[in-house]
Each structure stands twice: as structure tokens, then as C-alpha cells.
């Protein structure tokens, strides 16, 4: 592999070439196959659809609803997940007792719970919140348990030597040492939680981003559908980036 003389320029230019290729292929497909706009709209129509959405209040209401459901569920899931994870990491017997239950429930993918939440909670917010909490909980509990149990043993011995009792040790040393791992788990959990909200709204909702997209698909407004997918991606990326920055500021010591 020969080395390019301008690596920085490469890193910026090439992806732009890539985007250009994609757009080019898009337009070419349109020209070649003469597909109806319902199936493959022009890039421009997608852009205008996106611009229209951004200027509509209903859109922001939908985004707000989805974000609210996500945020509340995420908070619940993280708190419960970390708490139980710490318990599992610290108390060996509890971990041995709880592991089969948690491992088997983990195999029931969050999406499989969607019909049940609809049966129980209808299209209300509570159902989606609980779904997100469930999905996030399982990611966090497993990571926390593992991270807490794998803290460098010397640190534990130091803590005991300095006079820390087992719970003070758990919070001031183990949890703090495991924090960077928990931060990356929190980001993964956010991704899963966000997609769980959207999926739930695809299937049964009264408001939200997913519902908006499903409605657009039903009325064959494909540019809106694609614009909506773009929004899903952007919001997801935004949440992930926010968690990443916060955790790097507060938790990372490496």
C-alpha cells in the first residue's frame, strides 16, 4: 500500500467522493429504471420533505414524544440496571441466583415484548417507557455486573487496607473504577433503547416519530419516510454523542 502524500485531505475528500457516488447512483437508478416517485423519490424531494418537516410543529411534537419516552425509560433502565448490576457484582451468591433468570429474560428480545405492552398499556406512553427501560436494563445489568467483578484486585485490597467497609468499597472504588466501561455500555444501551421506541411506535402508537413515518408509508409519501429515517439516525447519533461527551468529561480517567 503506497502512502498518500496528503492523509488529512484524503480523510475529508474521499468520503465526499463517496457521498457523491451514492447520490450519483441514486440519480442513475432513477434515470435507468424510471421508477415511480413512490418507490424511489429524487434526492431533492427528500431534501424538501425534510425541510418541510422541520418547519412543522406536529413534527417537533412527534420527535418530542419519542424523545420523552426514550429519556424516561432510559433513566429508569440505567438506574435499575446499575443498581442490580452492582449487587450482582458484589454479592457472589446473589449473582449465582439471579443469573439464570436474567440470562433467559435477556433472550426475549425487547421487540418481542411489544405486542404484550400494547395489550397491557395500549398506545400510551407508559408502555413504550417500560419497553425502553427493559431493553436498557438488560444491557446495563450485565455490563455492570461484569465490570464491577473485574476491577483490578489490588484496588480492592487497597480499599480494605485503608479501612473501607464492603459497601463503601463497592461505591467509591468498584463502581468508580468500572465507570468508563459503564459509559460505553450506556451508549450501546441508548442505541438499543432509541430503536426500541421507534419500533414500538411502528407497531402501535398514538404519537411519535415512528407513528409519523408509518403514516407516511401508508399514504405512500416516500420522501417523508426517507426523511424520517434520516431524522431517526440523526437523533440517535445525537443522543450517543451527548452521552459520550458527558461520560468523557465526568467518568473517564484513562
Amino acid at each position, binding site marked *: 500500500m503506497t502512502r498518500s502524500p496528503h492523509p488529512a485531505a484524503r480523510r475529508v475528500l474521499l468520503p465526499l467522493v463517496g457521498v457523491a457516488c451514492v447520490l450519483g447512483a441514486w440519480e442513475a437508478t432513477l434515470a435507468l429504471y424510471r421508477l415511480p416517485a413512490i418507490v424511489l423519490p429524487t434526492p431533492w424531494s427528500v431534501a424538501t420533505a425534510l425541510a418541510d418537516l422541520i418547519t412543522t410543529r406536529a413534527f417537533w411534537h412527534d420527535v418530542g414524544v419519542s424523545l420523552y419516552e426514550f429519556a424516561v425509560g432510559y433513566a429508569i433502565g440505567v438506574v435499575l440496571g446499575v443498581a442490580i448490576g452492582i449487587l450482582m457484582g458484589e454479592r457472589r451468591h446473589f449473582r449465582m441466583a439471579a443469573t439464570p433468570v436474567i440470562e433467559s429474560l435477556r433472550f*426475549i428480545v425487547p421487540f418481542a415484548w411489544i405486542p404484550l405492552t400494547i395489550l397491557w398499556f395500549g398506545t400510551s406512553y407508559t408502555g413504550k417507557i417500560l419497553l425502553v427501560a427493559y431493553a436498557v436494563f438488560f444491557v446495563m445489568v450485565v455490563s455492570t455486573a461484569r465490570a464491577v467483578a473485574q476491577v483490578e484486585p489490588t484496588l480492592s485490597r487497597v480499599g480494605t487496607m485503608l479501612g473501607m467497609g464492603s459497601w463503601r468499597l463497592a461505591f467509591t472504588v468498584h463502581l468508580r473504577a468500572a465507570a468508563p466501561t459503564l459509559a460505553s455500555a450506556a451508549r450501546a444501551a441508548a442505541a438499543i433503547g432509541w430503536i426500541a421506541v421507534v419500533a414500538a411506535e411502528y407497531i402501535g402508537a398514538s404519537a411519535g416519530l415512528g407513528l409519523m413515518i408509518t403514516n407516511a408509508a401508508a399514504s405512500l409519501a416516500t420522501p417523508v419516510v426517507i426523511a424520517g429515517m434520516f431524522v431517526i439516525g440523526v437523533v440517535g447519533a445525537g443522543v450517543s454523542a451527548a452521552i459520550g461527551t458527558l461520560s468523557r468529561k465526568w467518568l473517564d480517567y484513562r
Partner: protein
Amino acid sequence: MASIDNGIASTVDISATASPRLSPRVRAWLLGLAGTAVAIAVWSLLSHWLAHGGGVINRLPGPIAVVRELVQYATSDLASDLLASLRVFAIGWLVGAASAALVGLALGRASLLGGIFLPIVEAIRPVSSIAWVPLSIVWFGFGLTSKVFLVGLAVFLVVIVYAVDGSHRVPADLERTATMLGMNEWQRFASLVLPGTLAEVLIGSRVALTAGWGTVIVAELVAANSGLGAHLIAVEQSYNVSAVMATMICFAAAGFAMNAAFTFMEQRLMPWRHDRARQER
């Protein structure tokens, strides 16, 4: 330092330094059983308590009702539904993994192509394939193609990272050995790059099992004409909560079985990868 580590490992449970009454494995089993029993007991209690006007969740069938439904389902439609879902999954998974292997190999080795297209792949990756469901329905309708596309996309997005990684990661000492032996470009590719990439693709394909199987159910929930997901929607719409729970359990059991089978095969085929594969869980 080994001794203090081993000793300290049992500090929390001091009795380990005395002669243990039960071997740790037996203890783990018993505690696990106890934990499961407690969970089932809580479930039964909740279902009793909620059955008599417990608010929002006014229908929580107990474990026995669910098991009854499970048996009934198993002796009727389970096999055909499961097969339908597995068919969707298998095709999608194979297509997704194979295309990810090819694309990943190409993008990984040809640095120009990689520079152009990998950033785009990286940008799309976080957007789960589930976001594509409405679009897929517009494009492919409610049939098999649509579901295979979604599953394939989900698997592709997971495996591509492993494929690109694998094509890059030829250990330096193997490279040097190849040079010493005087291999040409093609031989290097065939003996070093290809096996390495394939090994990584296999590991990634196993990780993608859960993502793919989960996508199957979402696809079938939306395009509900066959498979476990369709059955799930059907019983949901007839308010048969115990059947809903029974179907969920079937789905989870199938996922677990596939994961176990795949891990077993992976250990047999690539024993030297065993430890790394364990970490990827």
C-alpha cells in the same frame, strides 16, 4: 503473586478457605435453581393478585396457564410458524453475512475504495435496520423479500465491521514469514488474508445472530402474514395474553438454541479462536 490473588478471591466468602461443603459448581446450580424458583413464585403471586382488579395490567396469566398454552401451541402451529421464521432468518442471515464478507474484504484491502465508502458505512451503521421497515414495505411489500432484506441488512451492518477488521488484521509476524517464504500477492491473499477474514466473519456472524433474529420478529410484527411474529400479532389481537407469552418464550428459546448451536460449531471449527470468541459475547 498468584497465591494472594487466589486467596483474596474468596475474601468476600471466607468459608472458602475452610473445607467447602459443596463444590462451587453445585452451589452455583442450586442457587440458580433457587433464583428461578423465586422468580416463578413472584410471577404466580403477581398473577393472582392482579387477576382481581390490579389496575392497568388486568391480565397476567400465571406460569401454569402459559405452559398450557405453550403445549397447545407446540402441538399445533408452532412447527410451521417456526419454520417460516427460520426460513426468513436463514436466508437473510446468509445473504447478509456473505455480502458483508465480500464488501468488507474489498473495502478493507483496497484502501482507496475503503476511504471512499467506509465512512458512509460507518454513518449508516448506527441506524438500526429496523428504521428501514416502513421503507422496506414501500419497496418490497409484505412478502418474503421485504423481511429477508431487513434481516440481511441487520446482519450486514454487524458483520461488515468484523470483515473489514479481519481483512486488515494480518499479524505482523505472519506477514514477515510470508515475505521470507517469497509469496506473491495472490498467495498471500489466499493463505493469509482470506482465512483471517473468514474467521472474523464467522465470529461476527454469531454476534449477528441476536440482531438478526430480533429483526425477524419486528419484520413479522409489521408484515404479519407468516411466522412466529405473525402468530404473536394474531394472539395479541384476540387478547390471549397467555398465548402471547407462550409465543415470546418460543421465540426466545429458538434464539437461545441457535446461539448455543453456533457457539458449539465455532468451538469445533476454530478451537484456537475459542477464547476470543468468548470475549465477544
